[in-house]
């Protein structure tokens, strides 16, 4: 049937602009591996960093220029919300590359694969942000996760790194298995008609009448699979080890970009696809959110390692983000933001505080100072600006006004209360007060203790810029509230 083939090709060609950005990334990354790797001599590998940055800058343009519509038989849809999340992922990748260059140099671990893998992972995220079908979501998650498994274990000389990589890979693969099984159950329950989220929304309600057990089981399995990906208690076990063992820039990357994409997909699946049957999953998700907030913050209290502490803190923050997913209701026309909009604001602000903090850690690590909380002692003497910026990031993570972390928490809690999650919100505010304790612990070290080595630490240019940009955004926080709100107002699912 040449006619069919032709029309298929024509349709694909017509939808091609929707995937221009991820395809561009995949193309560049593949070319970098071969023949690119052969072109640049072994001792000049640093150049890849610049090339990657240029690629990413072009990607930003491609994302912005992507048309807004649905394509590939409604398996993918680009809207402003998709673009907004895609931009967060790309920005996070840019920052990661900037942080990595110096560190990789110091460790003599510069390879082209590092950058190529980052680009592959990013292309997966870009797909994931646009995916509106369980099948595309699943395949994008895999495309995103596989390169990250490798990146986590990138420091193959270190046992910690390998352990982290293997652990992450095994648990990740396991959770993917659960998820795909859940998807197949959902698919079967609807009579094998669709995996499209929009259609599932209505089909599942019908399916609930006849095959309630099957639907419930499927939905819960998808929930478990997604919970693994975003690291929600009780499926968070891999996080501290993976964060700890990965090279620090990759830790920062994992805590922001894949998390942003995965949580957005999470919101799409449960806020749109499974929303009409929320009675099957809402209780489980509420418990998971509460457990994440409590356990994440409490476990962080006892950590000695900066990266482990931030890992637990990120678990707690995902707990807060779950509030946004819970509150999302596509059927409700409300005067305030939808859950996904709030989620975006939260992820956006988290990006800056998180990256700022990790930039400081990476910098200290590069100076051979290590990554324990103790290593921050006396930082205020040795580099006042760095210490001050770090203080801002930590206070912002704790949600102290007038920083940006407070503002996004404020908007989030406001919305959650509006939708009636009073108990969860109370848990959220109380645990965020608890979280101040361990963030202050680091500030204690920086300001109240002194370091045996009194010499001033000089920052390199990249760290300086990155930290300054993040600090300014964090500091603007509430005072820029008006513009933040306007931006969020304009991005819609």
């Amino acid at each position, binding site marked *: 049937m040449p006619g069919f083939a032709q029309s298929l090709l024509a349709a694909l060609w017509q939808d091609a602009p929707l995937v221009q950005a991820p395809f561009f990334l995949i193309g560049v990354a593949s070319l970098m591996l071969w023949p690119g790797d052969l072109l640049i001599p072994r001792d000049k590998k640093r150049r890849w960093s610049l090339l990657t940055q240029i690629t990413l800058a072009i990607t930003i343009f491609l994302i912005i220029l992507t048309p807004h519509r649905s394509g590939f038989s409604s398996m993918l849809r680009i809207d402003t919300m998709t673009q907004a999340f895609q931009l967060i992922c790309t920005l996070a990748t840019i920052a990661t590359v900037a942080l990595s260059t110096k560190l990789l140099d110091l460790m003599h671990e510069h390879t082209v694969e590092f950058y190529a893998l980052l680009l592959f992972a990013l292309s997966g995220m870009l797909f994931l942000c646009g995916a509106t079908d369980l099948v595309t979501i699943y395949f994008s998650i895999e495309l995103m996760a596989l390169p990250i498994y490798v990146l986590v274990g990138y420091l193959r000389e270190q046992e910690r790194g390998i352990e982290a990589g293997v652990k992450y890979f095994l648990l990740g693969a396991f959770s993917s298995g659960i998820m795909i099984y859940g998807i197949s159950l959902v698919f079967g329950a609807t009579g094998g008609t669709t995996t499209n989220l929009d259609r599932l929304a209505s089909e599942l309600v019908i399916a609930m009448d006849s095959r309630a057990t099957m639907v419930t089981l499927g939905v819960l399995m998808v929930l478990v699979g997604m919970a693994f990906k975003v690291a929600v208690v009780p499926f968070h076990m891999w996080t501290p080890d993976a964060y700890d063992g990965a090279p620090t820039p990759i830790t920062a990357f994992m805590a922001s970009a894949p998390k942003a994409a995965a949580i957005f997909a999470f919101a799409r699946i449960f806020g749109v696809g499974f929303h009409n049957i929320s009675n099957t999953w809402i209780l489980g998700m509420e418990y998971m959110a509460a457990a994440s907030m409590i356990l994440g913050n409490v476990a962080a209290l006892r950590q000695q390692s900066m990266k482990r502490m931030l890992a637990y803190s990120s678990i707690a923050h995902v707990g807060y983000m779950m509030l946004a997913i819970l509150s999302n209701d596509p059927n409700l026309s409300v005067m305030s933001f939808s859950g996904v909009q709030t989620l975006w604001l939260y992820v956006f602000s988290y990006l800056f505080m998180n990256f700022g903090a990790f930039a400081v850690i990476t910098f200290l690590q590069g100076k051979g100072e290590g990554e324990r909380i103790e290593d921050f002692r006396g930082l205020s003497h040795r580099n006042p600006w760095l210490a001050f910026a770090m203080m801002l990031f930590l206070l912002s993570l704790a949600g*102290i*006004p007038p920083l940006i972390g407070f503002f996004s928490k404020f908007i989030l809690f406001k919305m959650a209360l509006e939708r009636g999650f*009073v108990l969860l919100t109370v848990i959220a505010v*109380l645990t965020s007060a608890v979280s101040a*304790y361990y963030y202050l612990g680091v500030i*204690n070290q920086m300001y109240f203790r002194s370091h045996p080595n009194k010499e001033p630490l000089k920052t390199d240019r990249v760290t300086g810029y990155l930290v300054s940009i993040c600090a300014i955004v964090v500091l603007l926080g509430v005072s820029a509230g008006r513009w933040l709100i306007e931006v969020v107002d304009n991005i819609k699912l």
Partner: protein
Amino acid sequence: MSQFANTLLMLAATFIPFVAAIVLLFVPKDRSEIFKKGALFATVLSFALSVPFFFAYDRTSDAVQWAQSWSWIPSLGIQFSVGMDGISLLLWLLTTFIGPIAILCSWEAITERLKEYYVWLLVLQTAMLGVFITQDMFLFYVFWEVMLVPMYFLIGIWGGPQKLYAAIKLFLYTLAGSVLLLVAVLAIYFLQVETNGTLDFSLASFQAMAPVIAEQTRTYQTLLALAFFLAFAIKVPMFPFHTWLPDAHVQAPTAGSVILAGILLKMGTYGFVRLLLPIFPTAVKDLMPWFIALSLIGIIYGALVAMIQKDMKKLVAYSSVSHLGMCMLGIFALNPYGFKGALFQMINHGISTPGLFLAVAVVYDRRHTRMIADFGGLSETMPVYSTIFMIMTMSSIGLPLLNGFIGELIILQGSFQAFPWAAVVATTGIILGAAYMLWMFQRVMFGSISDVNRKMPDLTPREIIVFAPLVVMAIWIGLYPRPLMDIMDRPVAKLVRQLSPDYYQAPSLSADQEKAKQEGMRGMEAPQNPNNTGNSEVIEEKR
């Protein structure tokens, strides 16, 4: 237009310390003189700008004056809205007044990391001033929380041996209280959206919600009121939420103690007067027995614990618990006398307690100990010091002709009207207060003097300059309290009306007023012009 200019002036007085802090950030670290003088200049300038407001304030109106608001986040109804009524004006002035004293008393005591010290102190000053001028709930919350950070650093870096513990305890305690406040604020915000359909964070709109809140279920009201209560009670601090206070006071540097005692504690009482009472009149009346009980326990317990202290600073810290309990008792009397007395006592406490902390710091700077047992007979060699110490002690005890007396008298008057037994119990607190303060004074100032203490020099000119304003204020307010009374008159009357709308129409009161008129007691008679907004009684004769 001049109205607008006044508002700008008010903002200038508030934000000058902050601007100075930013400027000082760019001065090189080793220019210690610039930090001292710059900080002093900024706070003195801020004080100088604030004084005219005392005279410009329109005492015949209970409205928020110099009010102005700028749109901030319109889609949420958040505004940058400022303005003051008499209550906030007095506390605002107290803050600008304490500012230079706090700077000046650190002049020699702080020897390391000067730059950071003065920058944090100035930031703290602006944050505190901001709390008193804001008329928007969101902005209030922002200032309220921001204040914690500089205080945390002041205690954590320049504090005593247990500074880390004290700093974190202060921070977490206060934060834990205020996050629930945020939830409660949002709950009222949504209630407002449901009933009026308006998005508004202004204090006035929150206070206007009182009748609607009163119609909600009892549990709802009580929970919200308790969330507010917790936030403010921790800050005051009321028993049993006071445990952070002795730690913070003892560990803080002198300026930190001065600011803590002088202003920070008043934030809590201010919160009660400004938010909790006007927004939840019904719930407050329901919970009143508990509140009164806690205040009374605070008065007695604080005094008893102060009595057995061996450390002078700790003694003064516990005396704060007792005095603030007294303020709370006055506030919970919910009548004009109670409020006026409480406000008055807040000002007094903001003058006498910083004075006492400074006095303790004088001997601490010389001998590096604060133990009462280490001193004795100081009046022999330090006559100026012991005189000032005595004035401050007497002011704190409430000796007539000094400021403390008037506040306590009016509070007892008010609480006797409302709860006679509570007033009786509170009076024992005053007696105990006299006991522990005089006992300390006796042990430190009289008796035989040791050789080490004999060598201590009397006050330096700088120290005298620090004490002078406090002494002047203590005596001035004690002799002529009327200007302060006038300022708080109308706002207090408004507050009382918000709590019990028919208070001034109550039959027993009007009968009393009628009788007073016949007998010629001018202070007690009914207001002359009941048609205007300030339908209040006036304590003293008409102007």
